[in-house]
């Protein structure tokens, strides 16, 4: 038994910043100090504060060490673990108050407003140890359901809880289950959609890496509710840690008899297999995902028939997103009312957001529905770095839109986001400051959808490309005002004629930026200027002759010999040769170079 547990984050963020090395060194040092029987090192999933990785927490004190370096380990072991003296200078600075008192992590800005349901075990348990999951009431929901509830009762609980799909569209989960349960068939399927594809979104990845058993347990509960005995998890091959931990979790669950035949002696059989996706965005769409599991090219097909009637292998199927499933066992254990007490009228519970972009605390946050954007960006996110101003936040990835500063105080839920021209999506939240060009952002997302369009239907295949071409024209300074009408016209066609949600939602980034930032489009077209100074074709670098001291540094830095001038004389940039790389501006010590 260990008196102290050192939790080292093994999520993707911290792994890439070197947490594996930290863990090895830690184990070595603990052994060297003879503490191996007293202090246990645990590899966990994501803590959420990825900006501060590698992260390490020492319990029972709850000391939060951030940005740990390998050379700090001997000090932490000999001072903290051996002598009990917390190494304050290495703690996350928000947890150390001015009077040297140490704040519990839950009291810090980043965690204070969060409410962890889906991420409950991430950063707390060892995801590769089923017993730790059971120790936090894991598989109890499955046991209760199998031994004392009828399938229709389970569906009723999920219906009453008001849980809606966390993958993006927000369809009521209980309703999905009810439809599939009502259809008779010799075989039904439960699928977990772990094909998280939005640029900047990594919440499903973190749940799979930090708490894989919760997904297995929830799928088994779903299987019992609709009468399915087989489940598939469709996960991207680019998530190697998630795949590895899912495989370990499935093996352990089978070993403990929590998957397989006659679970809890109830006569219920359920097993789960993994299917690895090759990373096509369209495979996150439910019909394309099922086609891919069947072994065919991942292309969508028209609905109806909906999956609840004819899904995988033409059998009734339900598809739930990872985060949706992560809520299920908690709803069963704590009751529908508990879940429904969180959130807003039509959006219950919590939502995980991957917070990224121009914000201090990037990472993973879980907040009750109805939290405002201001609370997320300014309080949890710690505001915009370098004193810049907030311009907009992008939600929903390539299917979503931008929320401008004027909607900073709108409570975030499914319906409010749609009303202001964006959508929940899977929960990527990218914060942008005044240095971001909104036309450029729209172009970025359209480039993504052009690449990821599967090509099956014409509106999406051709439409997205035509829209991208217009945006390129505008950012090159060759756009006309008619182009804006054409963009809106094309967007309407894509929305109404595309086969699946990929094409139907692809125009959203363009439409929402046109709605809130039309002046920026006009500046590109009429004034031939990019107000944020991003679009290269529309800006030029110049030297202020009054400030230039003639030090020649810029001329020597320029990779294209575009700057000329003699020593102690103001220099000049040859606009024909300038490639607009900005190297000279970075190097100038006198602030003499500016762009316009």
């Amino acid at each position, binding site marked *: 038994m260990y008196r102290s547990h050192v939790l080292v984050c093994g999520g993707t963020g911290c792994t890439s910043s070197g947490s594996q090395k930290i863990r090895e060194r830690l184990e070595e040092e603990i052994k060297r100090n003879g503490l191996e029987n007293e202090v246990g090192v645990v590899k966990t999933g994501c803590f959420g504060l990825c900006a501060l990785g590698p992260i390490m927490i020492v319990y*029972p004190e709850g000391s939060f060490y951030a940005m740990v370096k390998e050379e700090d380990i001997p000090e932490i072991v000999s001072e903290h673990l051996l002598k*009990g003296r917390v190494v304050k200078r290495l703690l996350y600075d928000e947890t150390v108050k001015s009077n040297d008192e140490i704040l519990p*992590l839950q009291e810090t800005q980043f965690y204070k407003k969060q409410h962890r349901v889906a991420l409950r075990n991430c950063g707390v348990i060892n995801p590769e140890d089923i017993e730790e999951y*059971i120790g*936090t009431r894991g598989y*109890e929901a499955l046991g209760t359901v199998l031994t004392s509830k009828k399938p229709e009762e389970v569906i009723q609980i999920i219906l009453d809880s008001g849980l809606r799909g966390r993958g993006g569209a927000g369809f009521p989960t209980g309703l999905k289950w009810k439809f599939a349960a009502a259809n008779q068939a010799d075989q039904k399927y439960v699928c977990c959609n772990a094909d998280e594809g939005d640029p900047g979104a990594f919440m499903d990845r973190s749940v799979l890496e930090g708490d894989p058993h919760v997904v297995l347990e929830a799928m088994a509960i779903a299987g019992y509710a609709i009468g399915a005995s087989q489940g598939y998890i469709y996960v991207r091959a680019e998530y190697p840690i998630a795949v590895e931990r899912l495989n370990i979790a499935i093996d352990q669950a089978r070993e403990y008899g929590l998957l397989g035949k006659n679970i809890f002696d109830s006569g219920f059989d359920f097993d789960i297999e993994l299917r690895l996706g090759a990373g096509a965005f369209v495979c996150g769409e439910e019909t394309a995902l099922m086609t891919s599991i069947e072994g065919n090219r991942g292309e969508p097909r028209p609905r109806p028939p909906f999956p609840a009637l004819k899904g995988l292998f033409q059998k009734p199927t339900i598809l739930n997103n990872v985060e949706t499933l992560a809520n299920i066992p908690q709803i069963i254990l704590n009751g529908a009312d508990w879940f429904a007490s969180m959130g807003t009228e039509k959006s219950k519970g919590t939502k995980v957001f991957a917070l990224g972009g121009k914000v201090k605390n990037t990472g993973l946050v879980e907040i009750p529905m109805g939290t405002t954007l201001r609370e997320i960006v300014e309080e949890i996110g710690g505001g915009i770095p370098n004193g810049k101003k907030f311009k907009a936040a992008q939600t929903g990835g390539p299917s979503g839109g931008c929320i401008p500063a004027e909607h900073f105080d709108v409570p975030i839920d499914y319906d409010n986001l749609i009303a202001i021209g964006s959508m929940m999506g899977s929960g990527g939240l990218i914060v942008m400051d005044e240095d971001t060009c909104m036309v450029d952002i729209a172009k970025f997302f359209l480039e993504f959808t052009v690449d990821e369009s599967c090509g099956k239907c014409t509106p999406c295949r051709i439409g997205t490309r035509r829209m991208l071409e217009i945006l390129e024209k505008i950012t090159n300074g060759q756009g006309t005002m008619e182009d804006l009408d054409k963009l809106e016209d094309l967007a309407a066609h894509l929305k109404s004629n595309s086969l699946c949600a990929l094409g139907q939602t692809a125009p959203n980034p363009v439409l929402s930026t046109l709605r809130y930032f039309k002046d920026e489009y006009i500046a590109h077209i009429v004034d031939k200027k990019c107000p944020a100074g991003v679009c290269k074709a529309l800006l030029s670098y110049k030297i202020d002759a009054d400030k230039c001291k003639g030090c020649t540094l810029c001329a020597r830095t320029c990779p294209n010999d575009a700057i000329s001038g003699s020593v102690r004389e103001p220099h000049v940039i040859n606009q024909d040769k300038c490639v607009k790389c900005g190297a000279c501006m970075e190097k100038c010590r006198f602030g003499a170079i500016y762009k316009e």
Partner: protein
Amino acid sequence: MKSLEELKAIRERNQGKVGVRSENETQTRVVVGMATCGIASGARPVLTALSDAVQKESLAEKISVTPTGCIGLCQYEPIVEVMEPGKEKVTYIKMDPEKAMEVFELHLKQGQAVAKYTLAAQQL
């Protein structure tokens, strides 16, 4: 897995372990002096005895056992301090694993401070 009882047994076995990782203000804090003086006079077995006992009885969510630095009374080490929310701190001196278990049984479990081992009982 055949029954809920079987699952419960595994849960209880692990509850102490994961309970160590909970944090809240209503916890009773037990700190053991583990500076050079404490370690030299045998604080480590005291610390592990207390920590093991708390986890064995699945009390880790209510009681946290942690090492701390020197509190300045080196000749009375090993020192164990018990801090219950809303109550005066109790300081036990010259502890060993057996005395610590007595404190665990009487004070931590039943709420009766063991007066004979406290600093207050000592002639200073």
